[in-house]
């Protein structure tokens, strides 16, 4: 029915450029999109700074091309220049750019506007900010429908609801009246996709469409994109995440620093990457299969990387328990109606953590994993149950009694920047975290800070980060400084709350290698919280799966992830396909044609 509506809309629009319309209607066998030698640079006070140097590919109906790269690789800028929205101060050169058979280099800004939304749909990441936060999603859809059609208001309203239904939003009439901040992350991302496909565009460009989404939601969104591809839409997928791309792409273009380092069919590129950078990217994806080996080339050079992973219970003596949680309950007054039952954010959670062991806590947003971390850290008090740290009571005791043990427990957060004083140098941040005795002696302090930097692989001599401010550090450097600060008090336990979630995959690989090296050297116990099953599978000895505040499954990582027992764990595991491995090519889709 919807399809009929849209074809009706399409027929009334007769003021489209004739050549464009001809190509669109005839469904010409020619590729829908051809790019040859795309170059983009930005004008800066110091001259032009190139960000894309020569991107070429072509895309046919029902195909998916993925552009993969890390932040700063130029992948998003490339995608934007394909719809003529590169941004202020940009200079775009391209030898050939054909969209639906028409030369897009000659298009007027009016013709571009007709193309966007109608023939090329674009999905940005993070629907919370990519949909107008002051509008109901139904109105946003209405705008999309109104821009290229002449349907009356009532009909547009029906179409909007129908679109939401098509992208898998349950109860669409109701949801159309809600604003993005009133919808869950998955629903609003689908609403954003709905605005991009309102006119059944022949080409859909999705820029990191699943970043920041939970695994199961990500799987749904990717399935929706795949369904569109199967219906004949040409899809361009932009992502930093190879495991996302592996599920959808027919061909992959790998970009780095604005240059294409490798491109080719997905199965070949993921199975037998040729360029060292691609090999590095593929090797950096963590998962169950990568346990016990380094993810980054730098990690492989370290002598400790060759050591077998010490599993608890391997030796004759069990390592001592350093942290124990018994029947933890934490409730919050729920928002909205008064008198409603308080929300049990953590509900009867028990676990033990041994020295030298990593316990992974995995779950989606709102599952209570961060609240569990706060309870373990003694930042908030459980309503029921207790926490025991190194044999001493930790919960429901005065902070003064916790204080002597505080140095033994450290934390690394997802966003280290917000945990640094922006006006302090790295040297001061680290110096301040040292034990008092060391902190007071300037010489011991300087030596200790330098040792910490060395421990986390940051240069302590020439090119040292000591005098720099947190804002001027890269994401990886910041996380290393955060880890160094956590190490300053020689802790026994480190709580890592989504500590690698915001990092690019190769940086994430380096940080994971570093963490595992440190663990082996110092017998550290990690409470490792992540929504990413791949990361959990790589680092954890045992894993704890949380849903709605409860532990639904708990056990050795291999067992839980290979043979999940609880239906929720099964769903979680099913939502991630095995990461691409050089040795065994990913299953991929059958025949791309």
């Amino acid at each position, binding site marked *: 029915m919807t399809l009929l509506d849209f074809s009706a809309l399409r027929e009334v629009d007769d003021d489209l450029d004739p050549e464009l319309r001809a190509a669109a209607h005839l469904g010409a066998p020619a590729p829908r999109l051809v790019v040859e030698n795309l170059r983009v640079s930005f004008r800066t006070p110091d001259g032009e700074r190139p960000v894309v140097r020569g991107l070429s590919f072509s895309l046919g109906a029902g195909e998916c091309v993925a552009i993969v790269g890390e932040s700063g690789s130029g992948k998003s800028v490339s995608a934007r220049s394909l719809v003529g929205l590169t941004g202020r101060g940009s200079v775009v050169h391209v030898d050939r750019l054909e969209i639906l058979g028409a030369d897009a280099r000659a298009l007027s800004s009016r013709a571009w506007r007709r193309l966007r939304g109608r023939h090329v749909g674009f999905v940005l990441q993070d629907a919370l900010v*990519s*949909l107008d936060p002051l509008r109901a999603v139904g109105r946003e859809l209405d705008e999309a429908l109104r821009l290229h059609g002449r349907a009356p208001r009532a009909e547009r309203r029906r179409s909007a609801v129908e679109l939401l239904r098509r992208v898998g939003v349950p109860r669409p009439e109701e949801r159309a009246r809600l604003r993005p901040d009133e919808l869950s992350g998955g629903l609003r991302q689908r609403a954003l996709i709905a605005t991009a496909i309102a006119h059944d565009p022949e080409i859909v460009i999705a820029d990191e469409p699943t970043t920041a989404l939970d695994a199961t939601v990500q799987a749904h969104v990717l399935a929706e994109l795949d369904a569109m591809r199967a219906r004949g839409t040409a899809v361009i997928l932009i992502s930093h995440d190879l495991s996302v791309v592996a599920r959808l792409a027919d061909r992959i273009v790998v970009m780095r620093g604005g240059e294409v380092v490798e491109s080719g069919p997905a199965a070949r590129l993921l199975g037998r990457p040729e360029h060292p950078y691609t090999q590095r990217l593929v090797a950096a994806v963590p998962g169950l299969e990568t346990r016990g080996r380094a993810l980054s080339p730098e990690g492989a050079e370290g002598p400790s990387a060759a050591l077998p992973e010490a599993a608890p219970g391997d030796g004759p003596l069990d390592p001592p328990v350093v942290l124990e949680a018994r029947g933890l309950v934490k409730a919050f007054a729920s928002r909205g109606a008064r008198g409603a039952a308080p929300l049990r954010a953590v509900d009867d959670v028990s676990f033990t953590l041994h020295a030298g062991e990593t316990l992974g806590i995995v779950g989606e947003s709102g599952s209570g994993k961060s609240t569990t971390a706060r309870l373990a850290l003694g930042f908030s008090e459980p309503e029921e149950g207790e926490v025991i740290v190194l044999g001493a009571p930790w919960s429901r005791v005065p902070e003064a009694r916790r204080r002597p043990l505080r140095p033994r427990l450290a934390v690394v957060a997802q966003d280290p920047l917000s945990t640094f004083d922006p006006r302090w140098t790295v040297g001061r941040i680290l110096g301040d975290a040292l034990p008092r005795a060391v902190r007071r002696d300037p010489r011991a302090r300087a030596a200790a800070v330098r040792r910490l930097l060395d421990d986390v692989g940051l240069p302590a001599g020439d090119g040292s980060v000591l005098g720099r401010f947190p804002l001027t550090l890269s994401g990886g450097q910041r996380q290393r400084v955060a880890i160094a600060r956590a190490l300053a008090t020689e802790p026994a336990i480190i709580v890592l709350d989504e500590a690698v979630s915001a990092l690019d995959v190769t940086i994430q690989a380096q940080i994971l290698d570093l963490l595992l090296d440190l663990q082996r050297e110092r017998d550290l116990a990690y409470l490792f919280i992540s929504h990413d099953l791949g990361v959990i599978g790589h680092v954890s000895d045992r894993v704890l799966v949380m849903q709605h505040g409860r532990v639904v499954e708990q056990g050795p990582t291999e067992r839980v992830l290979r043979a999940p027992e609880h239906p929720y764990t099964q769903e979680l595991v099913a939502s991630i396909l095995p990461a691409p491995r050089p040795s065994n090519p990913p299953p991929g889709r059958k025949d791309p044609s």
Partner: protein
Amino acid sequence: MTRSSWARPAVRIVGNAVGVLVGAATAAFLAQTALPGDRATAILNIRAGQAELRTPEELAPITAEFGLDRPLWQQYADYLLGLVRGDLGTSYLQFRPVGAIIGEQLGATVVLAITAIAIAWMLMVVWIVATGGRGPRLTALGSLVDVTTAALPAYWLGIILLLVFALGLGWFPVLGDGTPLSLVLPALTLAIPLAGFLAQATRTEFERALEQPFALSARMRGQSDLGVRLGHVLRHASLPAISLSGWALGATLSGAVVVESIFSRPGIGQVLVSAVSSQDLPVVVGVVVLTAAFYVAANLLVDLASALVDPRQRAA
């Protein structure tokens, strides 16, 4: 929105409004009683226009008329009760209820103030949409104009407008004759600096919103630049200016005096000036209380408008 989500803020807002009004009225009353010397003597002297000592026989009717022999708290209670009934007291000089004196002139001022704010908003919106986020040069020019107009003094601007458009070009009447045409120049005099002020508050937010992903998203859907600016960005950027408009309404009311005398318009400004110079305190107090009431009403409107523009505020 359910009813309960509106009820609680409504009670709080009305409570605040009543608090502000009672506070202003009390301050005005205390100022009246703090006048040096005997109040009855002061009133008689003001009426006679000369300062001299009065005999008790002369003072008796005044004391009786204004109830000055009763304890202060009783006078205060009477005063507040009068306010609730809409009675602002009696003018020392004109022997008439203050309410009537102000009422005659109020309409002209309110029309002027509201027209001025409406024009200020129109100027600001056009100016910001035209120059906001259009590269460093236009931004610099835009900000320069914002600051310059915001700093223009009303007496200077009013006289210039009068000289050029009324006396020079003859497009508008020189004197306020009550026609809509005679409203244009006084309203512009108030509106131009206000527009600059509002534009300053809006510009930063407008440029920030223009760079937001949702604006890019709208362009990706085929929305035109103007459509993005008017349909998405302006709404986000207008919130600070809406908050300022509440203040502006009150300030325009009390600031109307200069404009009204330049353009010889009737209005509350004239009333206030003559009352202050002749020490006709009940009239001054009446204007003060009324201005406070306007501030309160304007802020209620602002809260309502902000909630309409940004529905997220309702939840908070």
